[in-house]
């Protein structure tokens, strides 16, 4: 209980508005830009088909962990540059067997709003359906989900208050003359070797050194500590409609490249079945551009086998400013893709279902033989 109280206290200092824990109505927000402020109180009225500012996402996480206490817990990951707390949700069904971990992060680039929207959608889908839906239920028998809905919190807030198309973090450089590191160039893999810039003004600025940024440190430290258990590392971006496998820093392929492509292609097919949207699958260096220091490449190189970047809708028509009216369709189809990946991952590591099939087949055959012997 104490860590939770400590967390709430921190929240009280750093996110003063909109929480109203003393029961008083939420204060009107200072930085209203163009959004409608609807003071929702209950999770039942939370809209998964609109974009939410950070305060609301913080509150949503708390409410999720309260409503689904026992399965969903909220955990502190680290602090951002502007000293905001980073939280992830752990979805885990208590059991005695050791679990493997699925990691998903969204919003490493601030302007890619559809990504955090998807993370929230994903969490809701899992929690609402794990009891009734056998496909999802079986995942939770052996898998834990760790979901970081917004990685680049400072940047995300900045896109709400100041610049909708901001990408990087909000760290200060060169005596405050330029701001922000591209967090997806800041991981410790071929750091700043290619497809990244040493110039702090550029949007692909790799930072002052590998893992120089507090956000990157927080994620790195945590993922590294759990790497033996993590089988799947999914990082959600927009736009481009792509499922990207390692690597971006080289055209060389990972040892399991064929498998990653196969699983990725199957996911793209599942996605397309939903609303007809076309996704391309390939290594980042092959179908996108070279990058170094990306979280996906780093995750693969520390041994996490299934490591993907998803670039969600669209193809450039609206780009980063994807209409909220497309959130539902985008999330539905992306959900199919992610579930497809999870199916493959699950079947690879836990043969329980195929064992079940073998058993029932054996029984069937046995019955058939018995019948035939009677005739």
């Amino acid at each position, binding site marked *: 209980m104490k860590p939770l109280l400590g967390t709430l206290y921190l929240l009280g200092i750093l996110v003063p508005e909109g929480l109203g824990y003393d029961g008083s109505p939420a204060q009107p927000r200072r930085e209203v*830009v*163009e959004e409608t402020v609807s003071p929702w109180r209950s999770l039942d009225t939370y809209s998964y088909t609109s974009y939410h500012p950070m305060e609301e996402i913080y509150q949503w996480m708390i409410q999720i962990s309260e409503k689904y206490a026992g399965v969903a817990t909220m955990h502190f990951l680290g602090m951002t540059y502007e000293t905001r707390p980073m939280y992830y949700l752990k979805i885990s069904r208590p059991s005695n067997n050791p679990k493997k971990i699925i990691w998903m992060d969204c919003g490493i680039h601030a302007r890619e709003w559809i990504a955090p929207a998807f993370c929230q959608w994903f969490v809701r889908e899992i929690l609402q359906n794990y009891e009734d839906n056998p496909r999802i239920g079986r995942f939770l028998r052996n898998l834990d989900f760790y979901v970081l809905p917004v990685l680049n919190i400072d940047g995300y807030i900045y896109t709400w208050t100041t610049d909708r*198309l901001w990408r990087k973090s909000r760290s200060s450089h060169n005596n405050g003359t330029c701001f922000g590191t591209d967090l997806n160039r800041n991981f410790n893999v071929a750091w700043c070797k290619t497809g990244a810039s040493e110039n702090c003004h550029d*949007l692909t600025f790799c930072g002052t050194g590998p893992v120089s940024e507090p956000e990157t440190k927080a994620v790195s430290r945590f993922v590294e500590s759990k790497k033996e258990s993590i089988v799947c590392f999914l990082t959600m971006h927009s736009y481009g409609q792509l499922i990207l496998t390692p690597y971006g820093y080289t055209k060389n392929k990972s040892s399991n490249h064929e498998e990653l492509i196969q699983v990725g292609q199957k996911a793209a097919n599942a996605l397309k079945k939903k609303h007809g949207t076309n996704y391309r699958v390939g290594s980042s260096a*092959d179908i996108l551009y070279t990058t170094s220091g990306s979280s996906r490449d780093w995750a693969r190189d520390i041994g996490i086998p299934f490591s993907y970047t998803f670039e969600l809708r669209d193809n450039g028509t609206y780009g980063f400013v994807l209409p909220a009216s497309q959130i539902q369709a985008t999330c539905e189809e992306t959900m199919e893709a992610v579930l497809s990946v999870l199916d493959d991952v699950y079947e690879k590591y836990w043969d329980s279902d195929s064992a079940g099939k073998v058993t029932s087949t054996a029984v069937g055959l046995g019955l058939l033989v018995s019948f035939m012997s009677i005739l």
Partner: protein
Amino acid sequence: MPPRRQPQPKSGPEGPRPAVLLLAPLLLFALQGVAAAPAAAGGREDSPGLQDAELPRGLLQQAARAALHFFNFRAGSPSALRVLAAVLEGRATVNPKKECQVDLVFTTDHYNPEDGEEHLGKCSARVFFRNQKPRPAINVTCTRLIEKNKRQQEDYLLYKHMKQLKTPLDVVSIPDSHGHIDPSLRPIWDLAFLGSSYVMWEKTTQFLHYYMAQISSVNQWKTNDDAIDFDYTVLLHEFSTQEIIPCRIHLVWYPGKPLKVKYHCQELPTPEEASGTEEGSAVVPTELNNF
């Protein structure tokens, strides 16, 4: 001809309309002859003109985009804008000056997709990239999907609608942060995209390509002299650098007449510019006037 790169052909319910494609195979035939000509040094024997190591990644897609921007600009019709669906086939050569010639066939889709209707168009094009210099030379032919009269009708309806908009326009940005465009302002977005097509055509190189991210301000919207006189600032997203480039665009449009465009963009930060983006006078002149 095997496709150069990955992009899968878009599988619509029906393929591209065959009816008006007589020109395309002929054009391709002619293009093939030309493309086979001077292969750059070190070409592989099996596919003349194609050198994996030398060609920029995604070159066919780059060419398709440039060709489509140019096509949209030339068509001058905000109701008939097209977007890239898929590259079907293409080949490219690079000369010793690192200039790229690309011949390709690609499919297109409506910019404003009508519900349920998928009318894939088909284009063939020759694109000549001048090694990162602007204004790639384009020759592009596309199947006619909308009959000319109908297109003019739609344009005229749009035009009438625009004339009725109350000035000064009370807009901050289009779309807003949530991606919403008020239906009454939709024609402004389409017209802005048309104007931006000119800019994006000129700025596309074998490495750089652009999307229109947002209209950040409407500076002036006039409808005197019958034509629409539109002065606005648009934010272009350059994909390979991920940069956002503000461009001030001034266009004059009247249905059926060629579009007139003037523009000025902030320059992309280059490695030499250590101090960040600078206005105006860069090495490459961006101020162009086809008035």
